[in-house]
């Protein structure tokens, strides 16, 4: 590494860190604005260092495109990025997510009536959730064709198990006292389910739904590595990697990051509305 490059990188780091260290111990450090500002400064510092490293040292921008180049590529490829987003996120990931969620709810409610079944489903479902299920992608592509239907199926299977396990576990998570109370009212199964057990299970259920948003995106993108029409984020990533158009790959990853945090944020927002009563949500 050349001397000027090293010095300027170090300088950026020191300045960025100095600002953050001061902000973090300042009297205002609990203010919302500071809490947002500090990670943003940190992120910008890293981006600046990245940019400087690529520009001032001999690294080829083809191998490691600087942030400015990625931003430019992003801005110039919006139409392509948008159709890829539609194909992979809207059609593949979100359809699969909804299907998997509905199936998980159906199975959970069916199994819930039998203690025997729930005791079997919890460990088996937990076990399945830890397996590399993305691997079924080539099989589903064979069965359902290379368009988004096969991706939605992969996503549905991937999100099914974590959601199922969380619903079943959540439905079991009522205290003996709460169940006794319902018994003193002579409440039936469905009344207990809707008035007590489902509301009490909501924090668990949303935990499963949040884990599943990330899984859905992973499933939809990775499944495209096994075959897709000539559109989609996974398709674009694998072909662009092949052509060494890494700025395009980065642009797709930016899309994936925005989509991932937006979906997660949306589920978390609904969670906040639904489980406002839970200690973790109270201010």
């Amino acid at each position, binding site marked *: 590494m050349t001397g000027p490059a090293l010095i300027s990188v170090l300088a950026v780091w020191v300045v960025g860190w100095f600002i953050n260290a001061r902000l973090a111990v300042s009297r205002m450090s609990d203010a919302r604005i500071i809490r947002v500002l500090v990670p943003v400064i940190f992120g910008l510092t890293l981006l600046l260092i990245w940019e400087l490293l690529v520009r001032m040292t001999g690294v080829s921008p083809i191998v490691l495109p600087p942030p400015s180049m990625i931003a430019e590529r992003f801005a110039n490829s919006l139409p392509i990025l948008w159709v890829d987003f539609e194909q992979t996120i809207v059609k593949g990931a979100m359809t699969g997510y909804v299907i998997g969620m509905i199936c998980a709810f159906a199975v959970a409610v069916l199994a819930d009536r039998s203690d025997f079944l729930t005791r079997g489903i919890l460990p088996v479902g937990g076990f399945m959730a830890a397996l590399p299920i993305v691997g079924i992608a080539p099989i589903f*592509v064979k069965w359902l064709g290379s368009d988004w239907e096969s991706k939605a199926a992969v996503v549905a299977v991937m999100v099914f198990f974590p959601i199922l396990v969380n619903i079943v576990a959540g439905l079991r998570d009522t205290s003996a006292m709460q169940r006794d109370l319902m018994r003193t009212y002579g409440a039936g199964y469905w009344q207990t389910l809707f008035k007590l057990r489902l509301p009490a299970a909501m924090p668990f259920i949303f935990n499963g739904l949040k884990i599943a948003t990330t899984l859905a*995106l992973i499933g939809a993108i990775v499944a495209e590595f096994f075959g897709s029409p000539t559109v989609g984020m996974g398709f674009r990533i694998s072909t662009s*990697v092949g052509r060494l158009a890494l700025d395009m790959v980065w642009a797709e990853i930016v899309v994936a990051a925005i989509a991932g*945090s937006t979906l997660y944020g949306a589920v978390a927002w609904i969670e906040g509305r639904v489980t406002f009563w839970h200690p973790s949500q109270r201010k």
Partner: protein
Amino acid sequence: MKSLFPILTIVAAILVIWVLAVVPMNMHLTADQAQRDGLMVMPQTPAERQGYSGLGLSFANAGLIPLTYTLDRPRLPSPHQVAGEMWETIALRNVTSRQSLVYHGWVTLSATLVGFAIGTTLGILLAVGIVHNRAMDMSVMPWAIASQTIPILALAPMIIVMMGQFGIQGLLPKAVISAYLSFFPVVVGMVKGLRSPDAMQMDLLRTYYASSSQGFWKLRLPASVPYLFASFKIGISAALVGAIVAELPTGARAGFGARMLVGDQYGNPLVTWAALFAAAITAAALVAIFTAMERLTLRRMGMAAA
């Protein structure tokens, strides 16, 4: 062990559904094959048969049902075919042979383990830094949490290519992917664990005028162990998925991912299925090892989970 019987029941139910599904899934292929072999098939032309569902065709040709379980290249292999393929490629081949799933498994597993070791070490160190330095906490923690909502696995193909440009190939690029996939869960879990002692426990140490390093070794670190193991289990499965996916788009010639791709491209579904199940067994074994270590450690520490 009162859950054993329910678990076996669920597993048996899954197997039964699988076995039943084989018939309609494979019936079209079986019918085509039977016709070539000169058997009577209803209806008689493949074009007409396309109009039938797998189930309808199965009812029309009940006599062919046994044959659906013995196709060479089935759409859905039956459990015994997958088991047979695995037995052949795991037990009957020399482990250094390219035909051996043990060989391919080791290629993937070694990258997974190296990456996991790197990722968790860095993750723990960063977590310690985050707990002790407020600036670090405020700068890094939001990004670590955000990383959990992003499909960072999508970076995998690019990392392979980037490192390839620098002449780094083989195990290391895959290990890097495994490392960063296991890194973030460990950071988040470990920070949570190091922060888990409550105010009363921290106050107790303050009444002893304990230094912050004493507080770390005597309270924070032991308290974080259950959280650490929970993160390990998430991290190791993520690391394995990372290593497998890293083998996919780059035409790797060895590893579970490569086997899945080979089976896919050469139209040999048994290879894909065997690799898939071998990967699943590997993942289950890794998680089981960490669960056993967790039990043992927590019992030793007197924190045994019930």
